[in-house]
């Protein structure tokens, strides 16, 4: 698979390590009520869908950036690649 890195262009997927579902960006608030349950769900449960899947890849053998790759897990076709930092900022994270 080739991952079209937003800064570096097409890179071999072998340069990356894989973390999993991009929902892992949305870490629950540890101080909120029901945090134990929220962290269990965050850490251990997955939607694991067929078809389109947004997932986190880390460019370990490259520029060490985290990417959010939208990929069709039924065909391995890569549909969209974004910098995870851009997505986090657009979701209201503080830089």
């Amino acid at each position, binding site marked *: *698979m080739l991952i079209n890195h937003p800064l570096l262009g097409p890179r*071999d*997927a*072998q340069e990356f390590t*894989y*973390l*999993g*579902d991009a929902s892992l960006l949305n870490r629950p608030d540890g101080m909120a009520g029901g945090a134990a349950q929220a962290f*269990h*769900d965050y*850490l*251990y*449960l*997955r*939607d*694991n*869908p*067929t078809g389109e*899947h947004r*997932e986190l890849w880390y460019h370990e053998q490259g520029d060490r950036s985290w990417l959010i790759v939208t*990929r069709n*897990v*039924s*065909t*391995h076709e890569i549909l969209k690649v974004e910098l995870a930092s851009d997505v986090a900022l657009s979701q209201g994270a503080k830089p």
Partner: protein
Amino acid sequence: MKYSAARILWEGLTGHKGWKPVWRDPAPRPHYDIVIIGGGGHGLATAHYLAKVYGQRKIAVLEKGWIGGGNVGRNTTIIRSNYLLDGNEPFYEFSLKLWEGLEQDLNYNAMVSQRGIMNLIHSDAQRDAFRRRGNAMILNGADAELLTTEQVRNEAPFLNFENARFPIKGALMQRRGGTVRHDAVAWGFARSADSHGVDIIQNCEVTGFKIENGRVKGVETSRGFIGAGKVGVAVAGNSSKVMAMAGMRLPIESHVLQAFVSEGLKPIIPGVITFGAGHFYVSQSDKGGLVFGGDIDGYNSYAQRGNSPVVEDVAEGGMALMPIIGRARLLRMWGGIMDMSMDGSPFIDRTHIEGLYFNGGWSYGGFKATPASGHAFAHLLATDTPHDTAKAYRLDRFQSGAMIDEKGAGAQPNLH
């Protein structure tokens, strides 16, 4: 129809005209006591043990394709019980014991071949770890032997013992491990289940559950609604997809694992050899093909095919371990979809929905577990209590902290 030598002789003399299809092709009835979703190895084994051991009647197995067309036909056929942890080892040893009596139980030749499995050792630390594992196996009634380099050389002289990075310093041997003809496992369980009155319904895809007041009432299928007292789901690879129809999220990711078969060769490999350090394992089938594989590709996939970097990695592992493999031509390669669970261990448990039971999360170790998985799942379905050897396979174990992490890799499914 019982199989026997006399029967084969008789059929040989009478033109083989007496053989009949070994399972029926029934239309679904409107209601069953127990419906099992998934006509793979585990589902069919569950039906067999439910009918034969637990005396249940009115059972159906629903399969979206044809039986034996899923992962039970896509694995590398290895059986073993070389686990370390208390939650796992008694279960897999129970499974190995069931394998040993399977052909008599089913009256079906599954070609159970106990030629031994060797896990190679390359360092002192690894020897210590394998010694500990071997002791855990013996404590649970399994067999284990620590082999010296010379003993490994006697078993498999063709290995590269002087590899600069991973010289072979011995092995953990389980002589009762080996291989089984995987298709015959599906067919044997199907034939036995059918002969005990189980309806095996193929080309019948489940499209939804009927759940009322927290209790499952049946399943919607491509062949209409089928009512059920209890529903057992055994669809590893697609577990998340099926359980999502019941509104459940699982501690599972689906990953692809590739496997390879070479052209048929004369007997060369005595049993199963695993080269954990190089991510490679190999055995030889009864037809002579070298059956081998390595790691999962490492990303979510439902594609039933992998990518070339893992092919290269497996080939490199093979060449590092046994350079003679370079002379063999590859015949086939394929991928299977694994339920990779968060700790690499399976689930056989009730769900929060009354009457709905789940069996899955087998990671890449489902085939060897087939008989015990069926037995334990049948026990759970019939008695509503977990089988003695499967008590640890709870769905809530991540909440209670009782996870079974053989590899110590944490909640990272692609590392197990």
